[in-house]
Protein backbone atom coordinates (compact mmCIF):
# COMPACT_ATOMS: atom_id res chain seq x y z
CA UNK A 1 0.00 0.00 0.00
CA UNK A 2 1.41 3.42 -0.94
CA UNK A 3 0.34 5.05 2.33
CA UNK A 4 1.96 2.36 4.38
CA UNK A 5 5.25 2.65 2.47
CA UNK A 6 5.28 6.42 3.02
CA UNK A 7 4.82 6.01 6.76
CA UNK A 8 7.61 3.44 6.90
CA UNK A 9 9.92 5.76 4.98
CA UNK A 10 9.31 8.59 7.45
CA UNK A 11 9.71 6.19 10.34
CA UNK A 12 13.14 5.30 9.01
CA UNK A 13 14.00 8.98 8.49
CA UNK A 14 13.01 9.86 12.05
CA UNK A 15 14.97 6.89 13.40
CA UNK A 16 18.03 7.93 11.37
CA UNK A 17 17.85 11.54 12.60
CA UNK A 18 17.46 10.39 16.20
CA UNK A 19 20.42 8.03 15.76
CA UNK A 20 22.57 10.87 14.39
CA UNK A 21 21.59 13.21 17.23
CA UNK A 22 22.29 10.46 19.74
CA UNK A 23 25.61 9.57 18.13
CA UNK A 24 26.70 13.20 18.12
CA UNK A 25 25.67 13.66 21.76
CA UNK A 26 27.58 10.56 22.83
CA UNK A 27 30.79 11.03 20.90
CA UNK A 28 31.14 14.79 20.93
CA UNK A 29 31.58 14.84 24.71
CA UNK A 30 33.89 11.84 24.88
CA UNK A 31 37.60 12.46 24.84
CA UNK A 32 38.70 9.44 22.86
CA UNK A 33 42.49 9.22 22.53
CA UNK A 34 43.81 8.71 19.03
CA UNK A 35 45.82 5.68 20.13
CA UNK A 36 45.24 1.98 20.62
CA UNK A 37 46.25 -0.16 23.60
CA UNK A 38 49.42 -2.15 23.11
CA UNK A 39 48.08 -5.18 24.98
CA UNK A 40 45.33 -7.75 24.95
CA UNK A 41 43.03 -8.01 21.99
CA UNK A 42 43.62 -4.47 20.76
CA UNK A 43 47.23 -4.82 19.64
CA UNK A 44 46.26 -7.81 17.52
CA UNK A 45 43.29 -6.12 15.85
CA UNK A 46 45.22 -2.90 15.30
CA UNK A 47 48.33 -4.53 13.84
CA UNK A 48 46.42 -6.99 11.64
CA UNK A 49 44.21 -4.18 10.32
CA UNK A 50 47.15 -1.87 9.57
CA UNK A 51 49.24 -4.62 8.00
CA UNK A 52 46.28 -5.59 5.82
CA UNK A 53 45.52 -1.97 4.88
CA UNK A 54 49.19 -1.48 3.97
CA UNK A 55 49.20 -4.50 1.67
CA UNK A 56 51.37 -6.61 3.99
CA UNK A 57 48.74 -9.32 4.29
CA UNK A 58 46.40 -10.45 7.03
CA UNK A 59 49.25 -10.81 9.53
CA UNK A 60 50.06 -10.01 13.13
CA UNK A 61 53.35 -8.35 14.07
CA UNK A 62 55.40 -5.23 13.54
CA UNK A 63 55.75 -5.25 9.77
CA UNK A 64 55.67 -1.44 9.67
CA UNK A 65 57.56 1.11 11.79
CA UNK A 66 56.17 0.94 15.33
CA UNK A 67 54.87 4.53 15.25
CA UNK A 68 52.66 3.68 12.27
CA UNK A 69 50.44 1.54 14.51
CA UNK A 70 49.40 4.45 16.78
CA UNK A 71 49.85 2.38 19.93
CA UNK A 72 49.43 4.06 23.30
CA UNK A 73 52.87 3.04 24.56
CA UNK A 74 55.71 0.71 23.72
CA UNK A 75 55.58 -1.73 26.63
CA UNK A 76 59.09 -3.25 26.58
CA UNK A 77 57.67 -6.65 27.52
CA UNK A 78 55.61 -6.79 24.32
CA UNK A 79 57.63 -4.50 22.07
CA UNK A 80 60.50 -6.92 21.38
CA UNK A 81 58.14 -9.81 20.72
CA UNK A 82 55.95 -7.69 18.46
CA UNK A 83 58.84 -6.39 16.37
CA UNK A 84 60.55 -9.81 16.25
CA UNK A 85 57.39 -11.36 14.82
CA UNK A 86 57.32 -8.56 12.27
CA UNK A 87 60.99 -9.06 11.37
CA UNK A 88 60.24 -12.74 10.72
CA UNK A 89 57.55 -11.76 8.20
CA UNK A 90 54.58 -11.65 10.57
CA UNK A 91 52.21 -14.37 11.78
CA UNK A 92 49.30 -15.25 9.50
CA UNK A 93 46.25 -14.29 11.52
CA UNK A 94 44.03 -17.31 11.85
CA UNK A 95 43.70 -17.10 15.61
CA UNK A 96 40.90 -14.55 15.46
CA UNK A 97 37.93 -14.17 13.15
CA UNK A 98 38.65 -11.69 10.32
CA UNK A 99 35.58 -9.42 10.53
CA UNK A 100 36.80 -6.74 12.91
CA UNK A 101 40.33 -6.31 11.49
CA UNK A 102 38.81 -6.18 8.02
CA UNK A 103 36.39 -3.39 9.01
CA UNK A 104 39.23 -1.49 10.76
CA UNK A 105 41.46 -1.85 7.69
CA UNK A 106 38.70 -0.51 5.47
CA UNK A 107 38.22 2.53 7.74
CA UNK A 108 41.97 3.18 7.82
CA UNK A 109 42.19 2.93 4.04
CA UNK A 110 39.40 5.48 3.60
CA UNK A 111 40.00 7.93 6.46
CA UNK A 112 43.66 7.35 7.28
CA UNK A 113 45.08 5.65 10.37
CA UNK A 114 43.12 6.99 13.32
CA UNK A 115 41.84 4.77 16.14
CA UNK A 116 39.62 7.67 17.27
CA UNK A 117 37.89 7.79 13.88
CA UNK A 118 37.47 4.00 13.87
CA UNK A 119 35.90 4.05 17.33
CA UNK A 120 33.57 6.90 16.39
CA UNK A 121 32.45 5.15 13.22
Amino acid at each position, binding site marked *: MPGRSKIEFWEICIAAVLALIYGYSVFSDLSIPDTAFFVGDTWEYQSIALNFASGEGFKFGGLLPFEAYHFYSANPEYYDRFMDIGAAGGEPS*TFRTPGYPFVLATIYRIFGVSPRTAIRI
Partner: protein
Amino acid sequence: MVFHRLAPNIGGEILTEALIALSVFLVLVTWVIMNRNHRTTLPSAALFGLTLATAVLVKGSLSFLPPLFVGYIALQVLRKGRYRLSVLTTTLLAFLLPVIAYSVYATHANGSFVLLSQQGRSVLLAKAIPKKLVAMFGTKTAVLIGIALLFAATAFATCLVRGRAPRRLIVLLSLVAVAGLVIGTSSPQLRALVVVFAFGPGLLLFTLACLNRCFRRRVSALWTSPGWVAVTFVITNFVLVAIVVFGDPRFLAPARFVLLLAASFLLIRLAEALGLPVGGALTLEEDGHFREIF
Protein backbone atom coordinates in the same frame (compact mmCIF):
# COMPACT_ATOMS: atom_id res chain seq x y z
CA MET B 1 22.77 3.02 21.24
CA VAL B 2 21.93 0.95 24.30
CA PHE B 3 25.28 -0.81 24.03
CA HIS B 4 27.22 2.47 23.91
CA ARG B 5 25.25 3.95 26.79
CA LEU B 6 25.65 0.89 29.04
CA ALA B 7 29.21 0.02 28.09
CA PRO B 8 30.95 3.28 27.06
CA ASN B 9 34.38 2.01 28.11
CA ILE B 10 34.14 -1.04 25.88
CA GLY B 11 32.67 0.93 23.00
CA GLY B 12 35.46 3.50 23.33
CA GLU B 13 38.29 1.08 22.56
CA ILE B 14 39.52 -0.92 19.57
CA LEU B 15 37.51 -3.98 20.63
CA THR B 16 35.01 -6.15 18.78
CA GLU B 17 32.05 -5.64 21.09
CA ALA B 18 30.64 -2.63 19.19
CA LEU B 19 30.78 -4.59 15.94
CA ILE B 20 29.19 -7.62 17.65
CA ALA B 21 26.28 -5.42 18.77
CA LEU B 22 25.95 -4.10 15.20
CA SER B 23 26.09 -7.65 13.81
CA VAL B 24 23.32 -8.79 16.16
CA PHE B 25 21.28 -5.75 15.14
CA LEU B 26 21.77 -6.55 11.45
CA VAL B 27 20.81 -10.19 12.02
CA LEU B 28 17.56 -9.02 13.62
CA VAL B 29 16.90 -6.47 10.86
CA THR B 30 17.48 -8.96 8.02
CA TRP B 31 15.35 -11.53 9.88
CA VAL B 32 12.57 -8.94 10.02
CA ILE B 33 12.99 -8.24 6.28
CA MET B 34 12.95 -11.98 5.57
CA ASN B 35 9.71 -12.47 7.51
CA ARG B 36 8.01 -9.24 6.57
CA ASN B 37 5.70 -10.87 4.09
CA HIS B 38 3.86 -14.13 4.50
CA ARG B 39 5.77 -15.58 1.56
CA THR B 40 9.51 -15.34 2.20
CA THR B 41 11.45 -14.27 -0.88
CA LEU B 42 14.71 -15.98 -1.80
CA PRO B 43 16.78 -12.73 -1.99
CA SER B 44 15.72 -11.87 1.57
CA ALA B 45 16.68 -15.41 2.67
CA ALA B 46 20.07 -15.01 0.95
CA LEU B 47 20.56 -11.64 2.67
CA PHE B 48 19.79 -13.20 6.03
CA GLY B 49 22.18 -16.11 5.42
CA LEU B 50 24.89 -13.66 4.40
CA THR B 51 24.31 -11.61 7.56
CA LEU B 52 24.63 -14.75 9.67
CA ALA B 53 27.94 -15.50 7.91
CA THR B 54 29.14 -11.93 8.53
CA ALA B 55 28.19 -12.25 12.19
CA VAL B 56 30.26 -15.39 12.76
CA LEU B 57 33.13 -13.88 10.77
CA VAL B 58 33.04 -10.89 13.12
CA LYS B 59 33.14 -12.98 16.28
CA GLY B 60 33.00 -16.65 17.09
CA SER B 61 30.81 -15.86 20.10
CA LEU B 62 27.91 -15.50 17.66
CA SER B 63 28.40 -19.06 16.39
CA PHE B 64 25.27 -20.37 18.06
CA LEU B 65 23.04 -18.03 16.04
CA PRO B 66 23.25 -19.89 12.69
CA PRO B 67 22.31 -23.34 14.07
CA LEU B 68 19.46 -21.82 16.10
CA PHE B 69 17.98 -19.84 13.18
CA VAL B 70 18.65 -22.48 10.51
CA GLY B 71 17.28 -25.15 12.86
CA TYR B 72 14.12 -23.09 13.31
CA ILE B 73 13.70 -22.65 9.55
CA ALA B 74 14.32 -26.38 9.02
CA LEU B 75 11.72 -27.22 11.65
CA GLN B 76 9.20 -25.00 9.89
CA VAL B 77 10.02 -26.70 6.57
CA LEU B 78 9.52 -30.14 8.13
CA ARG B 79 6.20 -29.05 9.65
CA LYS B 80 5.23 -27.46 6.33
CA GLY B 81 5.06 -24.10 8.09
CA ARG B 82 5.85 -20.64 6.74
CA TYR B 83 9.13 -21.54 4.98
CA ARG B 84 9.75 -23.53 1.81
CA LEU B 85 12.68 -25.87 1.26
CA SER B 86 14.17 -23.36 -1.19
CA VAL B 87 14.26 -20.73 1.60
CA LEU B 88 16.17 -23.13 3.85
CA THR B 89 18.59 -24.07 1.06
CA THR B 90 19.20 -20.43 0.09
CA THR B 91 19.80 -19.34 3.70
CA LEU B 92 22.13 -22.25 4.30
CA LEU B 93 24.12 -21.69 1.10
CA ALA B 94 24.42 -17.93 1.67
CA PHE B 95 25.70 -18.66 5.17
CA LEU B 96 28.04 -21.51 4.31
CA LEU B 97 29.76 -20.12 1.20
CA PRO B 98 31.59 -17.18 2.87
CA VAL B 99 32.37 -19.26 5.95
CA ILE B 100 33.79 -22.13 3.90
CA ALA B 101 35.69 -19.73 1.63
CA TYR B 102 37.38 -18.02 4.58
CA SER B 103 38.02 -21.33 6.35
CA VAL B 104 39.77 -22.67 3.22
CA TYR B 105 41.95 -19.54 3.13
CA ALA B 106 42.70 -19.78 6.87
CA THR B 107 43.52 -23.48 6.57
CA HIS B 108 45.86 -22.75 3.68
CA ALA B 109 47.54 -19.86 5.53
CA ASN B 110 47.87 -21.79 8.77
CA GLY B 111 48.92 -25.15 7.35
CA SER B 112 46.38 -27.05 9.44
CA PHE B 113 42.60 -27.22 9.49
CA VAL B 114 40.94 -24.00 10.69
CA LEU B 115 37.19 -23.48 10.89
CA LEU B 116 36.66 -19.69 11.12
CA SER B 117 39.41 -19.19 13.71
CA GLN B 118 41.62 -20.98 16.19
CA GLN B 119 40.52 -18.91 19.13
CA GLY B 120 37.65 -21.25 19.94
CA ARG B 121 40.01 -24.09 20.79
CA SER B 122 42.02 -22.04 23.23
CA VAL B 123 39.10 -20.37 24.99
CA LEU B 124 36.75 -23.34 25.11
CA LEU B 125 35.82 -23.74 28.77
CA ALA B 126 38.69 -21.35 29.59
CA LYS B 127 36.67 -18.93 31.67
CA ALA B 128 33.36 -20.69 31.49
CA ILE B 129 31.33 -21.69 34.46
CA PRO B 130 31.69 -25.49 33.96
CA LYS B 131 35.46 -25.23 34.29
CA LYS B 132 35.15 -25.61 38.03
CA LEU B 133 32.97 -28.64 37.49
CA VAL B 134 35.60 -30.21 35.24
CA ALA B 135 38.25 -29.57 37.87
CA MET B 136 36.15 -31.26 40.53
CA PHE B 137 34.72 -34.24 38.69
CA GLY B 138 36.89 -34.74 35.63
CA THR B 139 35.93 -33.94 32.07
CA LYS B 140 33.86 -37.03 31.23
CA THR B 141 31.76 -36.89 34.39
CA ALA B 142 31.31 -33.13 34.07
CA VAL B 143 30.08 -33.48 30.48
CA LEU B 144 27.67 -36.25 31.49
CA ILE B 145 26.36 -34.16 34.38
CA GLY B 146 25.92 -31.19 32.05
CA ILE B 147 24.01 -33.24 29.47
CA ALA B 148 21.82 -34.77 32.18
CA LEU B 149 21.05 -31.33 33.64
CA LEU B 150 20.26 -29.89 30.23
CA PHE B 151 18.02 -32.85 29.42
CA ALA B 152 16.19 -32.55 32.73
CA ALA B 153 15.76 -28.80 32.32
CA THR B 154 14.48 -29.21 28.76
CA ALA B 155 12.02 -31.91 29.79
CA PHE B 156 10.85 -29.85 32.73
CA ALA B 157 10.48 -26.68 30.68
CA THR B 158 8.67 -28.48 27.86
CA CYS B 159 6.31 -29.89 30.43
CA LEU B 160 5.63 -26.42 31.81
CA VAL B 161 5.33 -24.70 28.46
CA ARG B 162 2.70 -27.16 27.34
CA GLY B 163 0.89 -26.65 30.58
CA ARG B 164 1.00 -30.28 31.62
CA ALA B 165 3.12 -29.89 34.72
CA PRO B 166 1.10 -30.26 37.89
CA ARG B 167 1.53 -27.52 40.44
CA ARG B 168 2.81 -30.00 42.99
CA LEU B 169 5.74 -30.82 40.71
CA ILE B 170 6.59 -27.13 40.35
CA VAL B 171 6.47 -26.65 44.11
CA LEU B 172 8.56 -29.80 44.66
CA LEU B 173 11.21 -28.78 42.11
CA SER B 174 11.31 -25.25 43.49
CA LEU B 175 11.92 -26.68 46.96
CA VAL B 176 14.66 -28.92 45.57
CA ALA B 177 16.25 -25.89 43.90
CA VAL B 178 16.15 -23.89 47.12
CA ALA B 179 17.53 -26.85 49.06
CA GLY B 180 20.29 -27.19 46.48
CA LEU B 181 21.23 -23.57 46.89
CA VAL B 182 21.28 -23.90 50.69
CA ILE B 183 23.26 -27.16 50.70
CA GLY B 184 25.46 -25.85 47.92
CA THR B 185 26.87 -23.18 50.17
CA SER B 186 28.54 -25.89 52.25
CA SER B 187 29.62 -28.30 49.52
CA PRO B 188 31.92 -27.21 46.66
CA GLN B 189 30.65 -29.98 44.35
CA LEU B 190 27.01 -29.17 44.92
CA ARG B 191 27.76 -25.47 44.63
CA ALA B 192 29.35 -26.08 41.23
CA LEU B 193 26.30 -28.08 40.14
CA VAL B 194 23.93 -25.38 41.31
CA VAL B 195 25.99 -22.68 39.60
CA VAL B 196 26.08 -24.57 36.29
CA PHE B 197 22.38 -25.25 36.45
CA ALA B 198 21.49 -21.74 37.56
CA PHE B 199 23.50 -19.98 34.87
CA GLY B 200 23.02 -22.58 32.17
CA PRO B 201 20.36 -23.24 29.60
CA GLY B 202 18.29 -24.59 32.43
CA LEU B 203 17.80 -21.09 33.75
CA LEU B 204 16.69 -19.84 30.36
CA LEU B 205 14.23 -22.68 29.84
CA PHE B 206 13.02 -22.49 33.41
CA THR B 207 12.53 -18.72 33.11
CA LEU B 208 10.61 -19.02 29.84
CA ALA B 209 8.44 -21.79 31.25
CA CYS B 210 7.70 -19.97 34.48
CA LEU B 211 6.97 -16.71 32.64
CA ASN B 212 4.57 -18.54 30.40
CA ARG B 213 2.78 -19.99 33.38
CA CYS B 214 2.79 -16.72 35.32
CA PHE B 215 1.48 -14.78 32.34
CA ARG B 216 -1.06 -17.51 31.59
CA ARG B 217 0.70 -18.55 28.39
CA ARG B 218 0.70 -15.01 27.02
CA VAL B 219 4.45 -15.04 26.44
CA SER B 220 4.52 -18.13 24.23
CA ALA B 221 5.24 -15.75 21.33
CA LEU B 222 8.85 -15.81 22.55
CA TRP B 223 9.20 -19.26 20.99
CA THR B 224 6.26 -19.40 18.56
CA SER B 225 6.25 -16.01 16.81
CA PRO B 226 9.07 -15.70 14.24
CA GLY B 227 9.74 -12.15 15.43
CA TRP B 228 10.19 -12.92 19.10
CA VAL B 229 11.97 -16.17 18.33
CA ALA B 230 14.81 -14.02 17.00
CA VAL B 231 15.07 -12.20 20.33
CA THR B 232 14.97 -15.50 22.22
CA PHE B 233 17.67 -16.96 19.95
CA VAL B 234 20.03 -14.03 20.51
CA ILE B 235 19.62 -14.33 24.28
CA THR B 236 20.07 -18.12 24.02
CA ASN B 237 23.25 -17.61 22.00
CA PHE B 238 24.81 -15.47 24.71
CA VAL B 239 23.68 -17.83 27.46
CA LEU B 240 25.33 -20.72 25.62
CA VAL B 241 28.48 -18.64 25.12
CA ALA B 242 28.57 -17.99 28.85
CA ILE B 243 28.35 -21.74 29.42
CA VAL B 244 30.97 -23.02 27.04
CA VAL B 245 33.37 -20.10 26.65
CA PHE B 246 33.05 -16.87 28.61
CA GLY B 247 30.84 -15.78 31.43
CA ASP B 248 32.37 -12.30 31.82
CA PRO B 249 29.95 -9.35 31.64
CA ARG B 250 32.10 -7.75 28.90
CA PHE B 251 31.19 -10.50 26.46
CA LEU B 252 27.50 -10.22 27.24
CA ALA B 253 27.37 -6.42 26.81
CA PRO B 254 26.51 -6.50 23.07
CA ALA B 255 23.30 -8.39 23.86
CA ARG B 256 21.90 -5.82 26.25
CA PHE B 257 19.75 -4.05 23.68
CA VAL B 258 18.12 -7.38 22.88
CA LEU B 259 17.38 -7.89 26.56
CA LEU B 260 15.67 -4.50 26.46
CA LEU B 261 13.41 -5.75 23.66
CA ALA B 262 12.56 -8.87 25.65
CA ALA B 263 11.91 -6.76 28.76
CA SER B 264 9.58 -4.46 26.79
CA PHE B 265 7.67 -7.50 25.59
CA LEU B 266 7.27 -8.82 29.13
CA LEU B 267 6.20 -5.40 30.42
CA ILE B 268 3.51 -5.21 27.76
CA ARG B 269 2.29 -8.69 28.67
CA LEU B 270 2.32 -7.73 32.34
CA ALA B 271 0.30 -4.61 31.59
CA GLU B 272 -2.16 -6.69 29.59
CA ALA B 273 -2.42 -9.23 32.40
CA LEU B 274 -3.18 -6.41 34.83
CA GLY B 275 -5.82 -5.03 32.49
CA LEU B 276 -3.91 -1.83 31.70
CA PRO B 277 -4.30 -0.33 28.22
CA VAL B 278 -1.39 -1.12 25.92
CA GLY B 279 -1.04 0.37 22.47
CA GLY B 280 1.20 2.26 20.10
CA ALA B 281 4.15 0.99 18.18
CA LEU B 282 4.83 -1.85 20.56
CA THR B 283 1.47 -3.56 20.20
CA LEU B 284 2.33 -7.12 19.28
CA GLU B 285 0.78 -9.72 17.10
CA GLU B 286 1.45 -13.41 17.43
CA ASP B 287 0.72 -14.34 13.84
CA GLY B 288 4.21 -13.72 12.57
CA HIS B 289 3.96 -10.02 11.68
CA PHE B 290 7.01 -8.04 12.55
CA ARG B 291 6.68 -4.37 12.00
CA GLU B 292 5.00 -3.95 15.36
CA ILE B 293 8.07 -5.21 17.21
CA PHE B 294 10.32 -2.25 16.69
